C-alpha cells in the first residue's frame, strides 16, 4: 500500500522542531509499504527536524520512503544530515582560550582590555 503525506498540510510551511517531526510517526499508516513525503510548499526545514525525520525512517525499516517536491535548501539539508549520520563527526574547530575569573574586577579588567 502506498501513502502520500503532504507535510504542509500537517505542519505548515516551516519545519523547525524535533517534536514536530516526532508527530509524523503517528501519521504513517501501519500497513503502508511505500511512503512519499511531499515537501511541496515547505519553506524551511531545520537540521533538528531533518535528523528526527531520519530517526522515524530508521524506525520504519520495513517501508520505503521517497521525498517529493523538495526545494534546493531542503534537498541540501536532507543530503547533509543523511551523510552526517553515517560517520563520526570531525569537529575541526580552532582551539579556544579558556579563562577563569575569580572576581568581578578581574573580569572587568579583561573585558576593558579587549
Amino acid at each position: 500500500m502506498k501513502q502520500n503525506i503532504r507535510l504542509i498540510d500537517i505542519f505548515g510551511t516551516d519545519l523547525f522542531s524535533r517534536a514536530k517531526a516526532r508527530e509524523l510517526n503517528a501519521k504513517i499508516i501501519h500497513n503502508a509499504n511505500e511512503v512519499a513525503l511531499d515537501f511541496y510548499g515547505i519553506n524551511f526545514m531545520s537540521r533538528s527536524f531533518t535528523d528526527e525525520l531520519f530517526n522515524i525512517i530508521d524506525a520504519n525499516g520495513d517501508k520505503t520512503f521517497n521525498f517529493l517536491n523538495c526545494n534546493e535548501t531542503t534537498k541540501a539539508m536532507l543530503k547533509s544530515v543523511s551523510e552526517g549520520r553515517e560517520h563520526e563527526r570531525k569537529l575541526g574547530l580552532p582551539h579556544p582560550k579558556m579563562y577563569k575569573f575569580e572576581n568581578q574586577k578581574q573580569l572587568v579588567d579583561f573585558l576593558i582590555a579587549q
Partner: protein
Amino acid sequence: MQPARIHIPNVREDERIGSSFNHLIRVVEETIHAQSKVIWDFKDVHFLHPFFLAPLAIFKCQSEKEIRCENISLPMQSYLNNIFFDRTLHFENAAKETAEMVMEQYAEKSYVPLCSFSMTDANKDAFGAIVRDIIVRQTKSTKISTPISYFLGELIDNIYEHSESPNGYLFSQFLEHEGCIDLCIADTGITIFRSYEKAGLFQAEIGQDESEALRMANEGRSTKNRPGAESRGYGISTSKRMLVEGLGGSFFMISGGAFHRYEKNSLNYYAEVKDFFHWNGTLILLRIPINTPDNFNYINYLE
C-alpha cells in the same frame, strides 16, 4: 529599611557585547545582593543596548526581588512599554493566526518585543516562523531569511530538548545605522552544565568546570546522541559558524556560571565566572549583519 538604589548606565548602541555584559553583571549582582527592595535608577539613560536591555528584562521578570524603576525619561518609558520590558508578551497555546495577528503590528517597527512562549506550546514552530518573517520585513533583507530560520529553529529547539525551562524568551532589535539585528534567545532552565551533569555524560572532562561544559555544547557534544553515531549537537556549532564565519556577525552565550564569546575578529574564548556570577538559565545573543557577503551560501554551512 531604605530601598537599595542601583544606577542603570546608559549603554549606547555602539558598545560591544563585552561591555554590555560588564554592565549587566554589575546591575544583576547588586540587585541580587541587596538586603531590601530595589530601585533601578534610569536617570542617566537615553539608550539601552539590546544586549543589555533584553537580559535585564528577563532577569527582572524572574527575579523574586521587588524592583521598581524610577527616573525614566518619557521617550525611554514609551520604548520600555512598547517592548514589554516589565511583563513580556506571552504566548501560550496561541493559534498561529492569533500569533500572526498580534505580531503583525511589529512589521513596521524596528523591534520584536520581549516575547515569552510556553515550551509546551504546540505552535512554537509557527512562532519562530512568524518572528522570522517580521524581522525580514523590518530589515527588507530577504537574504537573511534562511540563516535566521536556522538560528531560531535550532536554538529554540535546544531550549525545548535540553533546558527543562517552562518558557523560552526572545527579543530582537534592528539597528539600522549599524546594519544589523541584535537577537536574544533565552531560557530560565537548568543550564548547560547541569544538563550534562543530569545526563551523566562527559563528567570526566567537565568535572566542576562550567566553561568546559559550554565548550562541549559549542563543539556539538550532545547529551542525546544515538549510540554509534553523532547525529545531534549541530545546532549551536553550525549556527555559530554560519553567523560568525559566514555572515561576519558575533555570538555570545552565558549559561549558569560561564560564558562564551565568538566574533569575527578572532575573539574565541570561554570563561568561568561562577565564583561571583550566576545566570539562571542560558542566554544567547546574536549580532546578525543584514547585508550578507556576496560569497555567503547557506548550504555551505550545513553539516
